[in-house]
């Protein structure tokens, strides 16, 4: 179990995920001479700029043309390079899905796809820029690995793990500064979750930035005498079947929390495991099948029922279901 570094209040030395992304791009660039970062006119937003500055010769600008971005990446990968085609998540998973699927994923090419600006926090851009369906979409592609980091250290570890494995990877980057959960020594393993906090009454499965919200929800629940287990599943595909089943068997009910639509994404991934291993009452926290509006970040999390309080409330519903079913 990893020490939970989140104290009662959020916001202790938060790390902007995009900065972690840029810094890790640079770190990997040093390690992998065949790495190339590509951009579609968004590098100062995504912070791929940091790579551009460090390795101008290995930075490719394709303009506002996401289909081409991924096609070119396929061609580079076929020639032995390791491309990181960088754009906003919506423009990767929606605009270039066919290219990602058939030019990259089908031949299992070594392309690492960062999806920036996922979920709610996109700085008031509104529905078209709030990527909520990418987990569902990317999970549906054979060969594709999918990961959603909880904090800067996790993102860095995921990017290292992405580079270390052959084949396509999709990972998410929220436009948000997150308080650190993990230390600098944090390791990430494909298909492995992390038990952050032990509990007896309910399991909170978090992915991405929502794991921090789960920890906070566990605090809230603890205040009411409820013992919530918190598990972070940064690796969504492959997913940690053993850990999920084992925890659910122990607590008997669960909540999933994702910074994405609740249809077919992370919650579904957990449910798919539980259906085969250990069916328990499960409530999903995420965007409830609605387009996301412009608005303040906190406002949006409240509006969409994705605050720690909402997770805590969902936990109580799940526990209630468990009691009802065991009667």
């Amino acid at each position, binding site marked *: 179990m990893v020490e939970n570094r989140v104290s009662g209040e959020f916001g202790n030395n938060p790390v902007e995920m995009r900065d972690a992304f840029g810094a890790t791009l640079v770190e990997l660039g040093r390690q992998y001479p065949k790495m190339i970062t590509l951009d579609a*006119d*968004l590098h100062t937003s995504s912070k791929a700029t940091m790579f551009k500055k460090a390795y101008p010769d290995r930075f490719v*600008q394709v303009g*506002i043309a996401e289909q081409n971005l991924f096609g070119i990446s396929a061609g580079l990968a076929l020639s032995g390079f390791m491309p990181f085609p960088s754009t906003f998540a919506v423009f990767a998973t929606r605009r270039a899905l066919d290219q990602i699927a058939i030019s990259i994923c089908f031949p299992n090419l070594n392309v690492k796809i960062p999806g920036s600006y996922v979920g709610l926090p996109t700085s*008031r851009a509104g529905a*078209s*820029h709030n990527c909520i369906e990418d987990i569902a979409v990317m999970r549906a592609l054979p060969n594709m690995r999918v990961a959603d980091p909880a904090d800067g250290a996790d993102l860095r570890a995921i990017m290292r793990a992405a580079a270390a494995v052959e084949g396509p990877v999709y990972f998410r980057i929220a436009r948000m500064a997150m308080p650190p959960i993990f230390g600098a020594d944090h390791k990430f393993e494909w298909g492995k979750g992390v038990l952050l906090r032990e509990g007896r009454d309910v399991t909170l499965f978090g992915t991405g930035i929502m794991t921090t919200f789960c920890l906070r929800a566990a605090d809230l629940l603890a205040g009411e005498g409820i013992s919530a287990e918190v598990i972070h599943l940064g690796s969504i595909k492959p997913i940690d079947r053993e850990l999920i089943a084992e925890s659910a068997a122990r607590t008997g009910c669960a909540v999933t929390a994702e910074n994405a639509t609740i249809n077919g994404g992370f919650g579904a991934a957990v449910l798919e495991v539980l259906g085969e291993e250990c069916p328990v009452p499960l409530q999903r926290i995420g965007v409830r099948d609605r387009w996301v509006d*412009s608005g*303040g970040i906190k406002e*949006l999390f409240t509006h969409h029922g994705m605050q720690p309080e909402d997770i805590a409330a969902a936990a109580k519903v799940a526990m209630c279901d468990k009691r009802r079913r065991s009667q």
Partner: protein
Amino acid sequence: MHLSPEKLCELDEIAYQIRRLSLEMITFGKWGHIGGAFSMAEFLSVLYFQAMSVKPDAPQWEDRDRLVLSKAHGSPALYAVLALRGFYPIEQVYSYCELGGFEGHTDMARTPGLESSGGPLGMGLSVAVGMALAMRFNENARGRVFCILGDGESNEGNVWEAAMSAAHYHLDNLIAVIDYNKVMAKGFVWEEMAIEPFADKWRAFGWDVIEVDGHDIEALADTFHRARWVMPRGKPIVVIAHTVKGKGVEMAEFNYKWHTHAPDAQTADAMLRELARNCQRPEQGYSKLGAEEVKEEFYGGE
């Protein structure tokens, strides 16, 4: 096309107000794209106050002209001109980027007078082609569809699919307007993805091309008049409007750093005063100075 001095004056004032309101919105809403709003001011003014047939009191009037803002991040300028044209009270534009208000990118459900919703670049011309086809189905010979695109946006393949089909269907009721402001989000167009020879591309895709100074109101009025009444001969028409991104405020002009960026209230105030001076208007600062609520931020996100 000759414009009376009064009309010219009106259109110029509207262009000024479009810039003012856009900057006010972006400042108050704490988000948005100044550069690409400012570059559109003159042609939006001419379109909505001279070239296009619309009825603000009957926004669904069947025979109206349509306008699709394909570069949907230019929404503040469009929200401004629609307000000025009377589609809704001006004060409403300050709901821009508020939860439940006018959306960051265009959302028809929120703003009266919008003809489409958008956000991702490159998609609007196809929508406009659909509207132009619909006018043909409805045997509406007078109606026109206008579609505004960015220069960087023309990197998108979807634009060329739409362009090819517009020529194939001989849609001379379709007029594309390119805001050729030479700058995209993170640099100059010729640096990031060169598009020249740009007019040749459109011609080769079967369009009639008119190039115009996108800040010259008389030339714009003349251009849209020709496009609407003189030129229709079986081809769609593209107006390549040569503009200056951020036009009107020096530090934003031609500068990708003001592509997307909300100034703080002080900066906005100074920018608005400079804008007024540059436009020979009485100096006027940021109207919400001091009045703006402090918008919460979460985990340090901008």
